[in-house]
């Protein structure tokens, strides 16, 4: 889970990376300028700089800079940051939750065009969808649902039990779990799942 500290560190990292970028560019400009006066020295310095900005070298330097073992550093990029970034690039935010296109598609499957329009309007009114773009502009998305074979469409999307099973919207407050109850259940599950003697 990202904390404020982690976000601060990330922002700091981006800022530092930008500073390094500017510094390297300035250095490159300096060498070019130096080349007018002492070509041999400039060429040597340029070779060193090219070695430094080699991707593999950069990766090692970044791992050292962020004080992480290289394997862990690369692992974090591929297992955590990249999928999350891809998910955000390849999706839509609804109510603050980022949906990938496949998740969003699953969400709207089974809804009629009218239901989908109503949903979009309701989300807009609640401020849960970004402003801009009329419903008509995204209504085409539902064509995929309309084109589903009848049998598929009958079972697509919201299952029958969504209508039969009570949603929690009408729940009485005493039905609801409280954070302390959730924590207590969590502790019980932990105790039950930890090996005896621990």
């Amino acid at each position, binding site marked *: 889970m990202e904390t404020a500290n982690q976000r601060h560190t990330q922002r700091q990292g981006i800022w530092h990376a930008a500073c390094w970028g500017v510094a390297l560019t300035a250095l490159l400009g300096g060498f070019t300028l130096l080349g007018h006066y002492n070509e041999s020295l400039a060429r040597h310095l340029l070779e060193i700089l090219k070695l430094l900005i080699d991707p593999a070298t950069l990766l090692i330097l970044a791992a050292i800079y962020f004080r992480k073992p290289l394997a862990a550093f690369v692992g974090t990029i591929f297992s955590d940051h990249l999928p999350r970034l891809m998910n955000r690039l390849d999706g839509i935010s609804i109510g*603050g939750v980022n949906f*990938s296109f496949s*998740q969003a598609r*699953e*969400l709207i499957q089974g809804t009629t065009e009218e239901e989908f329009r109503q949903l979009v309007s309701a*989300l807009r009114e609640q401020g849960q969808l970004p402003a801009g773009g009329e419903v008509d502009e995204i209504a085409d998305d539902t064509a995929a649902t309309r084109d589903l074979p009848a049998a598929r469409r009958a079972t697509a999307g919201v299952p029958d*039990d*969504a209508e039969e099973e009570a949603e929690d919207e009408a729940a009485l407050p005493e039905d609801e779990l409280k954070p302390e109850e*959730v924590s207590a259940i969590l502790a019980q599950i932990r105790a039950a799942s930890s090996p005896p003697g621990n």
Partner: protein
Amino acid sequence: MPDANDKIAPNLKWMAEFSTFDEAEQKLLIALSHQKYKWRTKDRLAAATGLTAEDLNKTLEELMRRNVVRTSISRNKNIIFGLRERVG
């Protein structure tokens, strides 16, 4: 006073993989395991878990990415969330 455990549906598969989830995810999974309600709104999930809106959104995203949670639309046009093993 009834045991809080009575509010949780028994024998859910995610509990066998309990240790693979972080604490926020575990709290959210418990809230989604409510005996009576298979579909939960974000407001109720936030109230039950005590997670901030930002943490709740990120945790829901992660659980959807892991295919443990799926979404749907309620009769009141809210986005609702349910455990895939319960709601299909």
